[in-house]
C-alpha cells in the first residue's frame, strides 16, 4: 500500500539525514520526499511517500516518531486529503507543433513559463496521475527535460498538522 506521511521536523542541520538514514538503514523504501521550512522558521514540514504492508508502515511511523527531531507526524492516507505535485517540463515546440502543444497544455491547465524559437517550458500542478497523463499525451520525442517536486499533501477539512493540535 502507498502511504503519504506528513512530518513536522525541527528545522536543524542533520534532521533530513536522520530521516533518510532511517529509511536506508532499515530497508524501507522512499518513493519521494520533499521538505521546506514552514511559517514557523524553527520547523520544517516534510512530505514522504512510501510503500509497505500494514506492519511495515506501522514500524515506519513508530521509528519516525522515535527520532528526536520529529515533532509530529500524520499519515495522510488514513483520511481524506489532497495531494499536489509541481512539474516543470521542457518540450520541443516547432512549427505546427507549437499550437498543438499550447492547446494540450491548456487542457491540463498548464502554463507556459519560458519560450524559445523551438521549445516551451510548461509549469503544471496536479496529482501525480494527472502529470503522468500529460507526459503520456506528449509524443515520445517531444520531451527535452522534466523535473517534478514529488507530492505535497494536506488533510481535507478541519484536520491539521500543527504544533498545537
Amino acid at each position, binding site marked *: 500500500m502507498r502511504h503519504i506521511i506528513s512530518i513536522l521536523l525541527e528545522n536543524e542541520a542533520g534532521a533530513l539525514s536522520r530521516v533518510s538514514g532511517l529509511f536506508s538503514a532499515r530497508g524501507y523504501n522512499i518513493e519521494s520526499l520533499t521538505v521546506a521550512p514552514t511559517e514557523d522558521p524553527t520547523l520544517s514540514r516534510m512530505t514522504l511517500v512510501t510503500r509497505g504492508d500494514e506492519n511495515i508502515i506501522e*514500524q515506519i511511523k513508530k521509528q519516525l*516518531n522515535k527520532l*528526536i527531531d520529529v515533532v509530529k507526524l500524520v499519515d495522510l492516507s488514513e483520511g481524506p486529503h489532497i495531494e499536489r505535485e509541481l512539474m516543470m517540463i521542457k518540450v520541443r515546440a516547432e512549427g505546427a507543433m507549437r499550437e498543438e502543444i499550447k492547446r494540450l497544455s491548456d487542457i491540463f491547465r498548464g502554463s507556459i513559463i519560458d519560450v524559445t524559437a523551438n521549445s516551451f517550458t510548461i509549469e503544471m500542478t496536479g496529482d501525480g496521475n494527472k502529470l503522468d497523463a500529460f507526459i503520456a499525451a506528449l509524443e515520445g520525442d517531444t520531451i527535452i527535460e522534466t523535473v517534478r517536486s514529488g507530492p505535497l499533501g494536506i488533510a481535507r477539512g478541519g484536520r491539521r498538522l500543527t504544533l498545537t493540535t
Partner: protein
Amino acid sequence: MELTGAEIVVQALKDEGVEYVWGYPGGAVLHIYDAIFKQNDVRHILVRHEQAAAHAADGYARATGKPGVVLVTSGPGATNAVTGIATAFMDSIPMVVLTGQVPTPVIGSDAFQEVDTVGITRPCVKHNFLVKRVEDIAETIKKAFYIATTGRPGPVVVDIPKDVTDPNVRIPYEYPQKIEMRSYNPVERGHLGQIRKAVDLMMAAERPVVYTGGGVVLGDGSAELTELVRRLNFPITQTLMGLGAYPATDRQFLGMLGMHGTYEANMAMHEADVLIAIGARFDDRVTGKIASFCPNARIIHIDVDPASISKTVRVDVPIVGQVKSVLADMLRLIDELSCEPNAEALARWWARIGAWRDVECLAYDHSDEVIKPQFAIETLYKVTRDRDFYLTSDVGQHQMFAAQFYPFDKPRRWINSGGLGTMGFGVPSAMGVKQAFPEADVGVVTGEASVQMCIQELATCSQYNLPLKIFLLNNGYMGMVRQWQEFFYDGRYSHSYVDALPDFCKLAESYGHVGMRIEKPADLEDAYREAFGMKDRLVFLDVVIDPEENVYPMIEAGKGHHEMHMSPHLSSERELA
C-alpha cells in the same frame, strides 16, 4: 561566573553529578583536557584504547543505572569509540560521549583528523549533536543527559569543535535546571485500560509464561516483577539481558530462554496460552522462527518504546510505559479487583513444566581429568555466592555457560554485550563496575580470543588499581565459532583455532598483576579462593578447559522453540520428548 567553553564542558559534567569520565586525549580535546587538569571533582580515567573507554563507561552505567561518560578526540578517537557506542546502543545503555571535532571553520575540508562523527554515529546512537557555538554547550550537554537517561535509554554523542572550547573566549555560565523538548516526551505511565485488559487475560490463563528482558533491569522494576510473579505463581523465563531481575534460584524461574535457553523455558513458551512480555524485545535469538513462535499464545507486551511493540511479533495487548510504574499499577489493580489466577490450571501447568525440568537439559559429563567449562562456572558460583559479586563477560561459549550456570539473584550483577555481541567487552566493562563499587568483587569471564581484543586494558587496571578477577576459559578455540562449524560445516574449522597464544600468566605479570594457570578440576576451587583472597591484586586465571565442549541446548537460527538440539549426554528418546 564566566567560563571558557572547555571549562563549561567540565562544569556541566560536575553539575550533572558525574564522578568519572573514561577517555583518551588528542588535539581536538586538548582545551578540555586542560580544564580537567585544573579541577578534582570529575575524575578522568585514562584507558589504553577508546573502545575500552566506551565499554568502561557502559559497564559503569549497567552496574549503577547512572549514565556513563566518555571523552575522546576527533577522527581516530571517535572512530575507535564507535564499537563501544554501538554496543551500548544495542543494549539500550545510557551514555554520553563527548567527541572532539576540528575547528568549525575547517569542518568539511578534510582537515587533519576530521571525520563526520555525527554522520558515522547517527545509526548507532539515540541522538547526537554538533555544538557550533560556545553559548550552546551547557544546554546541549543537559539535553544529552536528559535524552540518554529517559524513555528507552541509549548513548548520545556530543561533537565539540576545538574552537568552541577556545581558552580565550569566556561567557557567563549557567547550567539549565530543567529541560523541555517539544519533540521528545517519553512515556511514564501505562494506559490503565490496557493494564486492566492484561490482568483479565492473566487471570483467565491456563498456561501463562512471564518472559522478561533487559528493560526490567534498566527500569529498576525488579521488586515489582518479583512481587507480581510470586503472587500469581506464574513461571518466569528471562532473556540473556534480563538475568538477575528475578532471583534465578527461585522455584518459579525456568532459566534463560532462546537459542541457548533451557528445555523447560523454551517448551513452556511453545505451549503457553498467555505470554506476558516485560521489557523484552522479541529478538531473533529469543524467538527463533517467528512462524512457530508461541503458536498458541495471546501476548501482552509492556515496553517503554512503542517501536519495540509488534516489531517482529504481533501482540494482543500492548502497554507502553515504564516497567516499574506499569507493574505497580498492575499490582494495585489486582489488589483492588481481588482477583486470583486459575489455581487448578496452574497446578496442571506446573506438573507439565516439572516433566520438562526432569529432562535436566543442562546436565553434562563430569570429568576428573579435564576442566569442563560448566564446572568452571559452577565452581565460580560456589565461591562467590555469598560475596558482593559482579560478573562481566566477553562473547562466546563462555558467555553462554555463565548465563546458564551462574544463577544471578539480583539485577545489574550480570553485565554482558547481548545485542551487538562485542568481543573485547569483558575487561573494560569490569573496570567501570569496579570503579563504581570498589568494595565489591568484580569478575570477568572471558575466552582466549575475546580477551585479546582489549588486553591492553590490563595497564589501565594497574594504573588505577582495579583488582579484577579474570576467569579465562581457555579452550584454544573461538569456541562459539567452532561449535557452528562442527554443526553446520561438517567440522571444517576454518580459522577458528586461536594459534600463537601468549603465556597469559607472564603477560599478566608483565603488567604487574598475578597470573595463575589451572589445568585440573581438583585445583579449581582452591585456586579461585586464593584469587579472591588477594583482595588488592588483579588475578588473571588461565583456566584450561575441554577444547571441544559445546553449548546445549541449542536452537538453530530459523528453527522453532520445540526443535532444540539437546546434549548428546541425554538419551535420544528424551530429545524427542
